[in-house]
């Protein structure tokens, strides 16, 4: 099947190159049949990349170890869910996922716009197929997922245990969906600029794709943060690592874009700005993939040389230069149809929101690339830590949250004092009350956090006020029950109220971030059974060690789990027991490792104990001290080494299982001290709740509105029925 997969990729490259040629030739000569042929090439690309992806996925699911990529990233003992998702844990698989998603979205948008934007679409098709050809080329010439092994191993390496988390396995498809969906408005912006058709039609045609891109990319970033919090054993969710930053940058500029296009749709302004934003977003999406895959920066993700750096750099350079050339050469056609009427208007606030987002992106960009910049300027590599990022990101985010409350309510063109009073009196009062209450409760010790709480209260005030007013107005018109009125109000104005919900969710999320980062208590402590430690209001006592062998579905040993049972009290009240553990997975590298020792030379992964609550999370991780076991491990290794070859495989397996059983029993009975990390973080749960609200709001924005024509007809019918009813009533 590997040959079929490789052939599908070669054909994919072929149809992509043909499609680029056909689209450009058709556009230049005005031949609609050739343009349609180019579009069909995009459909064929989608089909062929899906075929390649399905072949690779099937190889993972049936553990076909003749595929080098399967042998390197999966195994027969890997659980089925992780076999299915291990595809994108490899470089080759993740690039194939990129191509598959890109070609699917491309086919979808080109199908939906087949009767629209006839002049713009061929160029957009060429750009999308160009990106497809680039990734198909990488997969054929540099990172083939279909390389086969001449002598396949009897067992694969398995999916890295650290990646065995549902949130980490869904994180890459979400990020890549975001990246590839942003390619759609990018391509149409290029097409619109090429043919100098820069009205809002290309924006309307691709707005949903931009919104979906923003939503998926945001979910991807959040899933990465959740994985970091729950799996990595350090208790944080954001570290300003270059790879985190790589996904954040296009999200920030994409956020600016989906706000500023409203100004272009409504008032024909900011055309240069919008074109520049989406072109920058497209480039940043490629830059994000480049940062993760090229190894250009020293980071936890980006060590090691890669063959992909050069091609990515050439593509990003071409996209950047092409984008700048297009915007500069089309600046005369990109003139605004109107000017800003007043500094206090919705347009101005949206522009300010855009400037803050771009500034935030610049901060992240500068900090991420600083090692390279410093080396170029001073000849010495240097790096910036999280405090530097926080210094700029925190106040800018605070301003952003505040603006998300002001922007949707302030009047278009020019706000008056009466408008401001009507819109902001209640939210401002809510914010002042929140400030007073929080200061009285002692939150004044962290001023920026207090600022975020107040800004959050202000945003919540604006959203609930608007919902209330809208519902009251609707009920006055229709007489509907309150719950029905709210649902229908949102259903009839999805963009508006979906947007409000997104703003509310972001405010909740950042309140969670501010509280958990400013008021966290952390203790690193070494305890023996019977000893206890304090963290925040909690008392944690190490009662006893836990140890067990964890079997795979085939009853083979998957990993050894050592942990601790901890009794927890809060303010003297017993809360029960918690059980953080650490899993020790055997190394697959058998050279030089003993039969027992290899279990402690492979990956070891924390399984934290988490008591999550709306007020605070108690987060516990353990690092068992296996030093006391080392003499036993060495002795066991020596015995098995001496007996090598003299035992039947079945007897050796039984002896190994019994020895490991003895080892874990010894750990439990010896009860050695262990290292603990104890954290209490207030309101972390609200980060995830806020993210869900953002997700719900985004879905509401995305959900297609009822057909406008049908709505007009229904409204017409309602009027007629009302009139008839009126007549009937008048007669009676």
């Amino acid at each position, binding site marked *: 099947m590997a040959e079929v997969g490789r052939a599908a990729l070669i054909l994919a490259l072929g149809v992509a190159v043909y499609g680029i040629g056909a689209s450009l030739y058709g556009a230049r000569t005005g031949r609609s049949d050739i343009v349609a042929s180019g579009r069909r090439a995009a459909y064929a690309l989608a089909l062929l990349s899906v075929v390649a992806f399905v072949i690779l996925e099937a190889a993972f699911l049936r553990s076909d*170890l003749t595929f080098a990529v399967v042998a390197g990233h999966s195994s027969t003992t890997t659980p089925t869910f992780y076999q299915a998702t291990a595809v994108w844990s490899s470089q080759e698989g993740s690039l194939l996922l990129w191509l598959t998603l890109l070609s699917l979205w491309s086919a979808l948008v080109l199908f939906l716009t087949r009767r629209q934007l006839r002049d713009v679409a061929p160029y957009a098709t060429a750009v999308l197929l160009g990106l497809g050809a680039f990734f198909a080329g990488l997969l054929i010439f540099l990172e083939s997922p279909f390389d086969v092994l001449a002598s396949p191993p009897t067992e694969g390496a398995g999916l*890295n245990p650290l990646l065995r988390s549902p949130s980490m396995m869904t994180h890459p498809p979400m990020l890549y969906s975001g990246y590839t969906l942003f390619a759609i408005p990018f391509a149409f912006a290029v097409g619109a600029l090429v043919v100098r058709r820069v009205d809002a039609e290309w924006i309307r045609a691709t707005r949903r794709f931009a919104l979906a891109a923003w939503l998926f990319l945001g979910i991807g970033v959040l899933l990465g943060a959740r994985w970091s919090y729950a799996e990595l054993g350090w208790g944080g969710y954001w570290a300003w690592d270059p790879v985190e930053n790589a996904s954040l940058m296009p999200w920030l500029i994409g956020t600016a874009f989906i706000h500023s296009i409203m100004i272009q749709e409504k008032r024909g302004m900011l055309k240069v700005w919008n074109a520049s934003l989406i072109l920058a977003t497209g480039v940043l999406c490629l830059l994000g993939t480049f940062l993760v895959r090229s190894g250009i920066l*020293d980071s936890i993700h980006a060590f090691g040389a890669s063959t992909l750096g050069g091609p990515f750099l050439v593509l990003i350079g071409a996209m950047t230069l092409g984008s700048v050339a297009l915007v500069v050469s089309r600046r005369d056609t990109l003139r605004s149809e109107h000017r800003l009427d007043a500094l206090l208007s919705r347009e101005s606030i949206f522009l300010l929101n855009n400037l803050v987002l771009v500034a935030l992106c610049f901060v992240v960009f500068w900090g991420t690339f600083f090692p390279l910049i410093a080396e170029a300027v001073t000849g010495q590599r240097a790096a910036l830590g999280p405090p530097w990022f926080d210094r700029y990101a925190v106040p800018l985010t605070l301003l952003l949250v505040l603006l998300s409350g002001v922007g949707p309510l302030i009047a278009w063109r020019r706000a008056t004092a009466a408008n401001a009073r009507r819109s902001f009196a209640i939210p401002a009062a809510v914010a002042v009350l929140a400030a007073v209450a929080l200061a009285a409760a002692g939150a004044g010790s962290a001023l920026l956090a207090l600022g975020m709480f107040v800004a959050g209260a202000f945003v919540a005030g604006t959203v609930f006020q608007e919902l209330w007013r809208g519902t009251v107005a609707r009920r006055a018109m229709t007489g509907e029950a309150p719950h029905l009125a709210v649902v229908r109000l949102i259903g009839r104005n999805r963009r508006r109220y979906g947007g409000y919900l997104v703003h509310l969710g972001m405010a909740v999320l950042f309140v969670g971030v501010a509280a958990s980062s400013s008021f966290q208590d952390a203790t690193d402590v070494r305890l023996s059974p019977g000893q206890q430690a304090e963290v925040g209001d909690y008392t944690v006592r190490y009662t006893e060690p836990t140890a067990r062998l964890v079997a795979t579905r085939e009853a083979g040993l998957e990993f050894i789990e050592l942990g601790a049972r901890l009794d927890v009290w809060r303010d003297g009240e017993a809360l029960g027991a918690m059980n953080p553990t650490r899993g020790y997975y055997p190394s697959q590298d058998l050279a030089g490792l003993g039969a027992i020792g290899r279990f402690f030379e492979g990956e070891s992964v924390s399984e934290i104990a988490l008591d999550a609550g709306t007020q605070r999370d108690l987060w516990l991780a353990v690092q068992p001290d296996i030093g006391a076991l080392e003499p036993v491990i060495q002795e066991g290794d020596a015995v098995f080494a001496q007996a090598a070859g003299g035992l039947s495989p079945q007897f050796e397996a039984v002896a190994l299982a019994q020895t490991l059983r003895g080892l874990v029993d010894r750990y439990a009975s010896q009860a050695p001290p262990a290292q603990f990390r104890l954290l209490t973080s207030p309101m972390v749960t609200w980060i995830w709740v806020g993210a869900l609200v953002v997700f719900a709001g985004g879905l509401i924005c995305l959900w297609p509105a009822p057909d406008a024509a049908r709505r007009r007809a229904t409204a017409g019918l309602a009027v007629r029925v009302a009139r008839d009813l009126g007549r009937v009533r008048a007669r009676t």
Partner: protein
Amino acid sequence: MDPSRKRKIRLGAALSVAVLLAAALVYTSFSASSETRTPSELDTARAGVSYQLTGKVVEDSVERTEQGLDFEVRDREGAAAVPVSYQGVVPDPFREGREVIVTVQRQGGGFVGERDTLITKCPSKFTTDEQPS
């Protein structure tokens, strides 16, 4: 005032503010950064200055102590190594032979890692070379 002149003044003021902020950002980035050094480049390290040390954890060098963790870091290519005493969070992927970054300061003959600054290579980048089957 002439509207176009007013617009130009506004634009000039906005650009000046942007340039000033960017200059502040650039200036603070150079003053707040720590130099990135490999073990062999640390022989000229000054006491009281933080460096970001990058390299590989030396085999058989990791020792858990009452206070935390002692280990040696060597050049990625080469044998030059420095001892590091570290307290704080140890990431799950930390292992002998694996690449790490840790912020350190010279203290006596060795280096002391700053609390919670130890990071290791991300699992998504582990290659099959490290896990041959």
